[in-house]
């Protein structure tokens, strides 16, 4: 089993008021030196079987058509190996 992570971020030119609100709060909490914050979404897909090129291509398509709205958002897809769950 493998985990595929899709990160979705607003495109740089799109205003992100949530990120701005976080950024404005930082000095109040004593965190200085952060000039910008942008908030995004992270999807963790637990995939059965091996993540081969074909599987990745399908996930890429899924991200492009559904998880992200490419009018306003960019996305990245990466594979994350998960240690066999022993918990």
């Amino acid at each position, binding site marked *: 089993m493998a985990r595929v992570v899709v990160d979705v971020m*607003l495109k740089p*030119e*799109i*205003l992100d*008021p*949530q990120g701005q*609100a976080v950024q404005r709060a930082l000095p109040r909490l004593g965190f200085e030196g952060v000039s910008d914050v942008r908030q995004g979404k992270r999807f963790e897909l637990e995939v059965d079987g091996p993540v081969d090129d074909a599987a990745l291509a399908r996930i890429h398509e899924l991200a492009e058509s*559904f*998880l992200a*709205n490419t*009018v*306003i958002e960019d996305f990245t897809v990466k594979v994350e190996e998960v240690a066999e769950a022993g918990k």
Partner: protein
Amino acid sequence: MTARIGVVTFPGSLDDRDTQRAIRLAGAEPVALWHKDKDLKQVDAVVLPGGFSYGDYLRAGAISRFSPVMGTVIEQAKSGMPVLGICNGFQVLTEAHLLPGAMLGNNHLHFICRDQKLRVENTDTAWTADYTAGQEIHVPLKNMDGRYVADEHTLDMLEAEGRVVFRYLDFNPNGSLRDIAGITNEAGNVVGLMPHPEHAVEPLVGTGRTDGLPFFTSILKKLVNA
């Protein structure tokens, strides 16, 4: 003879019954459509109502856009069937790429409910013929994700082609670019807007105005005269 106008109910649709009432008050026949059915029951036009379909999870309108009914709506809209998207319906239309641009969270991060002043910029669409060009109207607005965005090129194109149908006047309630409250597609059969015309059809309820009624009389006349 009258016209049959469908109103889609998605899980989480809220203004579906209100839209049916507005259609009825305008003299047309409202037809309830269900998101899981591909069949549009031979309606002449479709309204995608307001609400929080699928809880607005993922993005407003993003999940509804893939429902079975939308497959048919998209197909028919492309061949000219009039479609109106109100609020969440507008969000569904942009997600479905029937209208350009996208909707994002209000710039002030709050839900906003107010009696909103608008200017009607285009009276050539299927849904706005009963207005006069430049007419100023008040229609209730209530949304969380009402900020219309598109790239500069798209915005310029919309302006050049007269496809901005409504603009916010006096106060931009959500940070929409160029004060855009509603737009249409190239053919003028698909219109989407954030404010709720179905809540401005009776003098006794809501804001007490009836400025939204012409949406529904416009489409009725168009369909009956067709």
